[in-house]
C-alpha cells in the first residue's frame, strides 16, 4: 500500500484553524477523531491513503464561504469531496489541508418542468436527480456506473461520463449552470436555464477541473424526456477484433446507439458468475448495445444493427424489447466491477481513451503487457466512445505487487497516448495519473495549465498537488514529453 504519512504538518495553524472551525460549525459538521476520519482517508482509488486531520461537513453555502475564508487566511489548503467514489485520488486528503465534504448539501432545490432543468446542491447523488425528475417523465442523462453513490458536484469536477455518452454527452454537455466559490471568496453564478452565456466559457473550464479551480455549491442540470422505447442487443464474438469491427461498422453506417459496451472473456466470466445474465461463456468478447427512440424508428434501426453484427461475425445475438430482459442483459455489465473484484484481492481500473479504429491494436498491446507483467487484465469498456477500462488484477499483500500493477497501468496509458488517445477519458488525473500526464503534455502545456490555476485560485489552496504534475516531477521521471526533438527547459537539472 502506498502510504503517505503526514509529514511536517503545520500544527500551529491547524490549532488556529480548528478553533475557528469549531466556533463556526455545529459539532456534527466537524470531524476530528480517528474513527470518524477513517472513511475519508481514501476515495475509490483505495491503494492510496492518507488520514486527514480534520473533515468539515457544511450544510449551507455561507458556511462553505466562511470555511474558505478561514483556510485562506491561515494558508491551509481545501480538498473538496463529494461521495468519494472518484477513481484517481482526486479527493485524497492532503496532510496540510481541510477536507471539505459536501455530502450534507444534498437538497434538490427545484425541478423546473417547463424549462426542463433541475437546480440542486452539490452533494445530491446523480441518480437522485433522475428519480426526482421521473414523475415528470424526465431524467438526467449522464449515468456513471457509480450513479447510486456519486455526487453531482463530483460529476462536475470530474466531467463524469457513463454508458450513454456518445449519444447524450458527458457532464459538460448536460450542466447548464453552476454556482462556484473561488478561493478568494467570490461566489459566481455562471449560466442557468440558458443555452449560452456572454464572455469566456468558464462553465466549460470548471467541468473536469477536479476541485482545483473552485468549489461548486449549486448545479443546474438539463433534464431530457425519457425515451419512448428501448431495444437492447447482446452479441457474442469469437474474436475481439470482430467485435471491434462491428463497433466501427455500426457507427460508420450513421447509427448512434444510446450505449455500446464491450467486455472481454475474463470480464464476461466474472460477470456471468456474479449476475447470471446469460452471457456466452465461450465468447472472446461481447457487445451490449442499447438503442432508443420513437417506436417506428427503433424497429428499423434494431434490424439494421443486427445486420451489422451478423456481417461482422457475431455467432450469438439476443435482442430484448421488454424491460425485464433488458435489465438482465445490462446486469452483467453493470456489476462487472464488483464481479471482477471477486476474482482477485485487488484491482486498479485504467481509463485511457483511444480512437475507435485503434481498439484491436491497443487491446493486443494490453494482452502483451499482461503476459509480460504476469498480471491478469479484464477489459470492460465504453466501446462507443473508445473509452477503455482495463482492470488490472493483483494482490496488495504480495510485496511490491501494487507498484508492479501501477507500473503496468502507466504502460497501458502510454500505449493509449501513442495511439492518439488520452490517459483519462472520464476518471480524472487526481494523483494517480500525474506521471502519465508528463507523457501526454509538453512543459509549455503544463505551464499553461498552471497559469490557468493561478488565474482562478491565486492563493493556490484548492486541492494542491493534484491534476497537473510539476515540471520538476516530470523532469525527475525522465519520461518528459519530447517535442520535435527538443527537451523542454534544458536549464532544469536532470537525473
Amino acid at each position, binding site marked *: 500500500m502506498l502510504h503517505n504519512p503526514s509529514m511536517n504538518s503545520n500544527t500551529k495553524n491547524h490549532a488556529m484553524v480548528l478553533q475557528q472551525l469549531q466556533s463556526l460549525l455545529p459539532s456534527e459538521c466537524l470531524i476530528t477523531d480517528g474513527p470518524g476520519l477513517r472513511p475519508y482517508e481514501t476515495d475509490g482509488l483505495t491503494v492510496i491513503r492518507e488520514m486527514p486531520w480534520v473533515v468539515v461537513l457544511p450544510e449551507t453555502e455561507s458556511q462553505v464561504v466562511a470555511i474558505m475564508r478561514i483556510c485562506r487566511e491561515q494558508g491551509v489548503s481545501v480538498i473538496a469531496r463529494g461521495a468519494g467514489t472518484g477513481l484517481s485520488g482526486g479527493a485524497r486528503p492532503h496532510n496540510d489541508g481541510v477536507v471539505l465534504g459536501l455530502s450534507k448539501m444534498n437538497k434538490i432545490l427545484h425541478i423546473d418542468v417547463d*424549462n426542463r432543468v433541475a437546480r440542486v446542491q452539490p452533494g445530491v447523488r446523480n441518480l437522485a436527480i433522475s428519480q426526482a425528475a421521473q414523475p415528470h417523465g424526465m431524467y438526467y442523462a449522464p449515468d456513471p456506473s457509480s450513479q447510486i453513490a456519486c455526487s453531482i458536484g463530483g460529476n462536475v469536477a470530474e466531467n463524469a461520463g457513463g454508458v450513454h*455518452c456518445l449519444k447524450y454527452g458527458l457532464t459538460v454537455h448536460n450542466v447548464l449552470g453552476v454556482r462556484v466559490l473561488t478561493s478568494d471568496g467570490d461566489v459566481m453564478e455562471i449560466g442557468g*436555464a440558458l443555452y449560452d452565456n456572454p464572455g*469566456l466559457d468558464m462553465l466549460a473550464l470548471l467541468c473536469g477541473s477536479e476541485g482545483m479551480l473552485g468549489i461548486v455549491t449549486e448545479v443546474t442540470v438539463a433534464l431530457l424526456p425519457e425515451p419512448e422505447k428501448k431495444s437492447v442487443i447482446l452479441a457474442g464474438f469469437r474474436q475481439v477484433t470482430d467485435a471491434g469491427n462491428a463497433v466501427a461498422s455500426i457507427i460508420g453506417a450513421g447509427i448512434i446507439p444510446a450505449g455500446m459496451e464491450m467486455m472481454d472473456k475474463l470480464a464476461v466470466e466474472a460477470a456471468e458468475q456474479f449476475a447470471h445474465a446469460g452471457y456466452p461463456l465461450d465468447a472472446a468478447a461481447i457487445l451490449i448495445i442499447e438503442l432508443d427512440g420513437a417506436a417506428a424508428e427503433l424497429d428499423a434501426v434494431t434490424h439494421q444493427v443486427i445486420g451489422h453484427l451478423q456481417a461482422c461475425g457475431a455467432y450469438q445475438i439476443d435482442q430484448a424489447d421488454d424491460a425485464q430482459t433488458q435489465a438482465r442483459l445490462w446486469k452483467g455489465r453493470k456489476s462487472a466491477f464488483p464481479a471482477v473484484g471477486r476474482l482477485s484481492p485487488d484491482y486498479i481500473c485504467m481509463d485511457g481513451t483511444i480512437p475507435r479504429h485503434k481498439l484491436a491494436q491497443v487491446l493486443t498491446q494490453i494482452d502483451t503487457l499482461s503476459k509480460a507483467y504476469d498480471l491478469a487484465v479484464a477489459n470492460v469498456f465504453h466501446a462507443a466512445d473508445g473509452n477503455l477500462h482495463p482492470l488490472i488484477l493483483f494482490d496488495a499483500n504480495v510485496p511490491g505487487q501494487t507498484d508492479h500493477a501501477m507500473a503496468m497501468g502507466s504502460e497501458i496509458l502510454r500505449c493509449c497516448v501513442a495511439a492518439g488517445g488520452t490517459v483519462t477519458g472520464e476518471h480524472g488525473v487526481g494523483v494517480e495519473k500525474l506521471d502519465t500526464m508528463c507523457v501526454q503534455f509538453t512543459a509549455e502545456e503544463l505551464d499553461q495549465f498552471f497559469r490557468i490555476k493561478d488565474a482562478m485560485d491565486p492563493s493556490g489552496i484548492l486541492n494542491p498537488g493534484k491534476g497537473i504534475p510539476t515540471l520538476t516531477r516530470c523532469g525527475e521521471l525522465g519520461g518528459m514529453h519530447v517535442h520535435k526533438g527538443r527537451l523542454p527547459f534544458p536549464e532544469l537539472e536532470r537525473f
Partner: protein
Amino acid sequence: MSGDLSSQFTEVVKNAYAAEQGLVICGHGSKGAWLPEIDLNNTQRLDVTRHSGIQAYQPEELVITARAGTALDEINRVLAAEDQMLACDPPRFQSVKADVMVGDNAGGTLGGVVATGLSGPGRPWSGAVRDAILGVELVNGKGEYLKFGGQVMKNVAGYDVSRLQAGAWGNLGVLASISIRVHPRWQEQVTLVFQMSAEQAQKKCLRLAQQNLPLQGTCWQGGVLYLRLAGHASGVAGAKLALGGETMQQTVDGSFWSDLRDHRVDFFQPKDDVQKIWRLVVPSAAPLPGAWLSSEDLLIEWGGGLRWLRHADEAAVKAHAKSVGGWCWAKGEQMPIDAVQGRYMNELKRAFDPKNIFRSAMSLQHAD
C-alpha cells in the same frame, strides 16, 4: 491555396510579444459586424485564412480535424460527401468585405466558427459549438504552440482548454488546428407550419419539448410557428403524423432554416436607423416581452430560449432581459459582462496572453 503556416504564426506572435505589439487575428471577416470594431492602433494583422486544409477525417470516428483557416463551406462539402455534417449548426454569415471575399472565402473559417461560438437554430437539440469541440492546437500570447484535447470523444486530462476557446473571440490565442465532432446527416427533414400567436407558440413548444420528438428547430415570427423535424426517416414520418399542421414545400424548406440561421431573412434588416437587433438568451418558459414591443419585431427560436428583438429603447430591452432571468446583446455592441466574472475572465486572458497581444473584438471588462 492551403498549407501549414503554424511555425509562421509562432514567429509572428513571438515577435509581437517581444515588441509588445498588438495582433488582430483575421479570418474571412464574416462575423465582424457582431462586435464593435477593434482599435487598430499599434497593431498588426494576422491573416489565418491561408493556414488551411483538412488534416484528418475518418467518418466512422465521428470527428474531423482541420486547420483553423479552412473554409466552413469546404468542411461542410467534405462532410456531406460522406453523408455527415457538423454536430453543431453554426451560422454562415456573409463577409462584410463582400467585394473582396467571395465563395468559400466569404462564409467563415472553422477557426471563426469556434472563436465566435455562435449557434444556429439546432442549438437546444444538437448542441453548441463548444459541445462539439474535442481538441485544439493554438499559439498562446507568448508564441508557444500548444495542444489540448484531441480526437477522442472523452478526455479529461488537464483543464478543458479546448472548449474554453469557443466564444473566446480570439482572446486566448491563435487557433491553429481544431478537432470537432461530426454527426450522421439527417435522412429526412420536414417543416411543419402552424398559424398562431407568440403566446400559443411558446406553450406549444414547451409542451413538445417534454416529448420524444425528432425536433431540430423551432421558429415563431409574424403569427406563424415553424417546426423542423429531422433525423431518421421513420421517426420523422411518425412525428409528422402525430403533430399535424401544414407541411412546408420541400423546395422552400431546404433554404428556410439556413436563411434563418444565416440571417438572410428580412427580420434581421432593421427598419430604421435607431432600431437595433437584440439577441436575448432566456429560460425557454420566460414571459414574452409585453405590449412595449410590437409582435412583428419579435422572432423566437430554440423552443423559446432565444429571442430576437428589433427595438430602439436599450433600457427597455435590458430591463426585460434581466427581469426574466436572461441576458441580451445588441448586434455590433459589447456583450454584458458581470463584474466579478469579468475579473476572472481577465485573469484567464492574462494566463494565456500576459502582454495583451491579442486584440479581440470581445471585451472582458465589466459592462451591463
